[in-house]
């Protein structure tokens, strides 16, 4: 079971969904906070939903306010990077670049892509955490780094 969990995680890493930062979070997990990572990721999804909405609204305006978009995205990127959401983060970077050059279409396209990655990651980590909970603290010992 633990091995399975480890594999799950490894896959997520291999596929580029998560990066090193996620490991940092795991390292913070301890007996006092056994579900720290899950808590943080949940917090992230909750808070970032608001950001996503703001960006969405901003994208509907015309003409686009690129600096505002860039600013919103910056926040979102910061959040995403702190939980190690690698793919989401790279979409953010791309989005910001489109903003910088004023590419409205690019922004919209990238944003759609971003939302997809965001949703995919959410599902995947949910499965992961569920599994981890089932396994229990033992999982910690098998954490693969």
């Amino acid at each position, binding site marked *: 079971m633990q091995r399975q969990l480890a594999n799950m995680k490894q896959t997520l890493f291999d596929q580029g969904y998560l990066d090193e930062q996620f490991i*940092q979070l795991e390292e913070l997990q301890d007996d006092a906070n056994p579900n720290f990572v899950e808590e943080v990721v949940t917090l992230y999804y909750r808070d970032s939903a608001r950001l996503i909405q703001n960006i969405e609204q901003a994208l509907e305006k015309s003409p686009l306010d690129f600096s505002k978009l860039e600013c919103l995205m910056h926040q979102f990127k910061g959040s995403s990077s*702190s939980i190690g959401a690698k793919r989401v983060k790279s979409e953010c970077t791309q989005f910001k670049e489109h903003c910088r050059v004023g590419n409205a279409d690019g922004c919209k396209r990238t944003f759609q892509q971003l939302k997809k990655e965001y949703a995919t990651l959410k599902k995947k980590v949910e499965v992961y955490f569920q599994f981890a909970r089932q396994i229990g603290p033992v999982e910690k010992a098998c954490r693969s780094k």
Partner: protein
Amino acid sequence: MNLGVNSMSVTTSSASWKSGDAVSDQFPAGLRVLVVDDDPTCLRILEKMLRNCRYEVTTCGRAEVALKLLRDNKDGFDVVISDVHMPDMDGFKLLERVGLEMDLPVIMMSADDSKSVVMKGVTHGACDYLIKPVRMEALKNIWQHVVRKKKNEWKEKDAEQSGSVEEGDRQQKPTDDVDYSSSANEGNWRNSRKRKEEEDDGDDKDDSSTLKKPRVVWSVELHQQFVTAVNQLGIDKAVPKKILELMNVPGLTRENVASHLQKYRLYLRRLSGQPQNGLGNSFLGPQDSGFGSISSLNGLDLQAYASSGQIPAQSLASIQAAALGRVTNKSGISVPIVDQHNIFSFDNPNMRFLDGQQHHSNGKQVNLLHGIPTNMDSKQLAALHQSGQPFGNTLMNVHSQSGQSNSLLTQMVQPQSRTQMLNEVGGNPVLNFPSSVGQPGLSQPIPGSVFSRFGMDNNVRPLTYKSLSQPTSVVEFSRSQGMELSGNSIPLTSNSGIPSYTSKGTTLQEEVNSEIKGSRGFLPNFDAFNELSQNRTDTWDLQNVGSTFETPQHSNVQSRLDVPPSVLVQPAFASDHRNGHLRTTSVNKAAFSTATSLGNGTNFGQQLTPSHADSSLRIKTERLPDMGFQNSLFPDQLGQDDLMSTLLKQQQDGLAPVENEFGFDEYQLDNLPV
């Protein structure tokens, strides 16, 4: 280990390290960290990471709250970690404020790793810059910044006290003591308090290694001396050694002067950075040499004074505006005049700034302006700003300066006795307002300008009253000061004594205020002013004052509350600029009611809300009369104390008893957040 020793001394010596003793042994464990970030995810992660490092963590989602926390617990934290991009306040602004008010090491962090942003962090005085996502390793070593800072402080102290009984020295020269408490003591807000603390600490310190340094409190007088010395040498040529010689203050070390100079330079730079003054920031322009501008201002001021009576208020405002750089011509007052103010303010602010963000003793003065404790530190200023007094802004700044300027101003403002008080309070040397300032008769007194500059502006304020317009300028100055002035500057405007000016002044103030606000410290200044002015205006709700002052930790601030509510209003102004946190609106309202003539208020509006600004401006004018004490303050540079008391007296006359809490002493410029 050496480190351990340091920490020990740090903890023991720095009075501020309340928990020092307890943690000294396990340093860096127990390090008290304040984390500010609007992103809850990051905040949570950081908190956990820091806890894992065995640090004591306090988290904050908003900069305003963080500032309040810091102010309320002066010695409660050792280091601050802040995000750069935050919705309610720019991280760099927070950085400045903290540096000025509390002199704590601040670490910036951001997902943005572009060179320009990192550079900005450096120029604003950040100890370090972390790129998000932050790793545990990066956080593990943040204690080094705390130690480093403390060590530097100690070194200075040591140097100055080599061998001598530190405590003894300290105690004996409380005023001269340089309070460089590592724990970023509030600057000198509570100089008096600190002194006591120091005395106590001194004992401790004595015991510990020579690392302990008595803190040097940059009182208004001291700062004034400093500024004078720097001016004499010329900002470019001002080297600590020469400054020290010129100052000829026993017990002061070259290191003390050096660090103060650094802060001062930063202050000036910041001031000159304020470009827009519309008014003619010419003097502001020269950033690097704040002095340069100051001198120019002085010259202008003199002229202004000369023509005082003509547009005192305006000039002040303009000057302030100029000084503030912000003055977006709100008042439309002749810019040139403002410049003058600026000069003044510069002088004063210099005093203050050098302190760096601390509120040096000057700060104390400034606050005095209206009784607003110059010590108001940015906090106070902020509080003041909150009052939303447009006037206050400038005044506030002035206050910060060290009251000295206030005195100058006050003198100038004659009618405004109040303003004068402010000036005097500050004893801002900078106030130099043109010699004329000294004369009460100066109608123009640049007080405003003076004040604004350093925050000492407070002093300036009084003067400005005359011109009312001037007060605004004062405000501006305070801006640079960051806060303290705000309180002071405002009063000037309130000197309704100058009816004609008032209107002008108000505008200036507003402008100034806004500017002041920008300068961080401004906000508080306004409060000071507001207070002062408030005394007079009945309409002024002291409450406002109270609210605004809350931030300023100094009790002075509170005392200011008694002072005309107008004072409070002012701060509000200042705050607008900067952070808007000063809720000047509350004060402004009061201002509104009272000030009707001002009309200029709108300009200030920045914080206050344009409408408020008008009223606030107006109020200011009204207040001026109350400020009567300013008039009395005229005495040339009363010492801060004198000023304070005078102001206080005035205030009392005007409104509520101005508790001597104003104690400008306390406010010392040190407190003035640079």
